[in-house]
């Protein structure tokens, strides 16, 4: 019997996703080369993910790495047009996986690598310069909100994976395994405005909280309050302003606004 286009596509896709055989009677001559599609699906996705997670690959070794990626691909079939986004759920999936979650350095490494990837090819945007900050009148400061460059991304990690990652990237033996933190540490990655290379560093607790708040649209006033929880109340405004200047210098900020005004 003849099937509709929609039904054939559903059956065909089920074959790729879970080896369902409903499509078989619809394949001419029994579809002797269907294996070409069967094989290509997982192989292609795993190949793409392998390019994005070199640190994770070195941490796990070939066998465990490809086993893990196979499970991930089954858990998160792609929903985007570009293969670029395939790995976006990997850090959380690793963290929450019964098996892989027992090794929290895996989720840290995945989050770190994904952050670097995002910084590398995020959309371009025009930066705010230091001179812009000097144009903002003092009375406007409390109400300022900030817009960040699309290349700025953060990751909150249980392990310091940076040295291990650099070794993996350079193809040399790492000095040792990733090092566990006492408390989580948030890293930032961004693209250097001129060289377009990816930069990264960890942030002190107050900076991480201030950045998180600023990214959520909290005003400078609110950011000072957050910073004040970590320092002298008197020094909070100075510390917050210092953080701002650092963000501008690094090329993180693309907009400074207050109640309808922009600088």
């Amino acid at each position: 019997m003849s099937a509709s286009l929609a039904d054939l596509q559903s059956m065909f896709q089920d074959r790729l996703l879970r080896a369902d055989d409903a499509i078989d009677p619809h394949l001419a001559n029994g579809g002797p080369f269907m294996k070409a599609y069967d094989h290509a699906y997982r192989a292609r996705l795993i190949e793409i993910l392998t390019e994005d997670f070199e640190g994770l690959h070195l941490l796990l070794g070939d066998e465990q790495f490809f086993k893990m990626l196979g499970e991930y691909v089954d858990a998160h079939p792609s929903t985007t047009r570009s293969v670029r986004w395939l790995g976006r759920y990997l850090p959380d999936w690793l963290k929450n996986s019964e098996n892989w979650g027992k090794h929290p350095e895996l989720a840290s490494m995945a989050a770190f690598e994904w952050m670097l990837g995002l910084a590398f090819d995020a959309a371009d945007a025009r930066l705010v310069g230091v001179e812009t900050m000097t144009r903002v009148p003092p009375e406007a400061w409390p109400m300022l909100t900030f817009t960040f460059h699309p290349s700025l991304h953060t990751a909150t990690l249980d392990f310091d994976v940076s040295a291990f990652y650099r070794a993996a990237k350079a193809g040399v033996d790492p000095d040792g395994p990733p090092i566990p933190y006492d408390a989580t540490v948030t890293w930032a990655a961004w693209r250097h405005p001129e060289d377009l290379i990816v930069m990264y560093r960890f942030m002190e607790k107050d900076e991480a909280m201030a950045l998180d708040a600023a990214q959520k649209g909290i005003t400078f006033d609110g950011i000072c309050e957050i910073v004040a929880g970590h320092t002298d109340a008197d020094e909070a405004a100075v510390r917050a302003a210092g953080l701002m200047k650092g963000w501008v210098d690094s090329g993180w900020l693309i907009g400074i606004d207050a109640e309808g005004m922009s600088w």
Partner: protein
Amino acid sequence: MTLQGFGLGLRPQHFPEILGDDPNAADGVDWFEIISENFIGVGGPPLHNMMAVRERFPMVMHGVSLSIGSTDPLDGNYLKGLKELADLVEPELISDHLCWTGVHGLNMHDLLPLPLTEESAEHVATRVMRVQDVLGRRFMLENTSTYVTFEEDEMTEWEFLSEICRRADCDILLDVNNIYVSGFNHGFSMEAYLDGVPTDRVKQIHLAGHEHNGDYIVDTHDEPVPDYVLDLYAKAVKRFGHVPTMIERDANIPPFAELVRELKGVRLIAERELDMVPA
């Protein structure tokens, strides 16, 4: 201006050679083709380098995930991104594959085969018209390599392709390697395919290498174009005249100079065949 001559697929590995100090590095390469998805919604080095190449060369855009044959709705966000990229790149031509890539919101990231039916033809033609409307440009459909056909099929692949392009008034990116691969896998006549495609719609030609497994061929783009595909290309040139032609290489990617050399061989074949075409 209409696109002329011979091109290569632009691959990130080759940016240093193309944009490097040697001004003659890309001699013999008249234009480049980019994979649209690689530049939609991104910035940084990929976009920067691509646009640097664009400043020096004409470009064509080639997509892999429009999923024109899917029974899922057309993806408006994707089309918007594609249009924005086209407005930036100003490509001479823009194409995607006559296939589907997924249903129910999923993407298999593969060029999946369509049943060759009236239902499919009407479905695809309707959608191509919408795509051409949104983009404000003529669109090309490319024939893909396939590994299965369906019991439901009602026509040959060349009838299917030609009929869709007639109904939608769109053009054809003819992949000669894909004709070879599908012809070998399904046992149809490759020459009949060429003869079945309308000459006035073929605006670009793809050539590539593949993996021959004895009883079937997989379209891998990881080898130089084999001689028997070049022989079929010569027949295509005889039928279609000069059509902008390029080599696709997506895996096992050699140094840029090697592809430039391979492309020169393609140019020689076309020139030889064109001399034989009565003026």
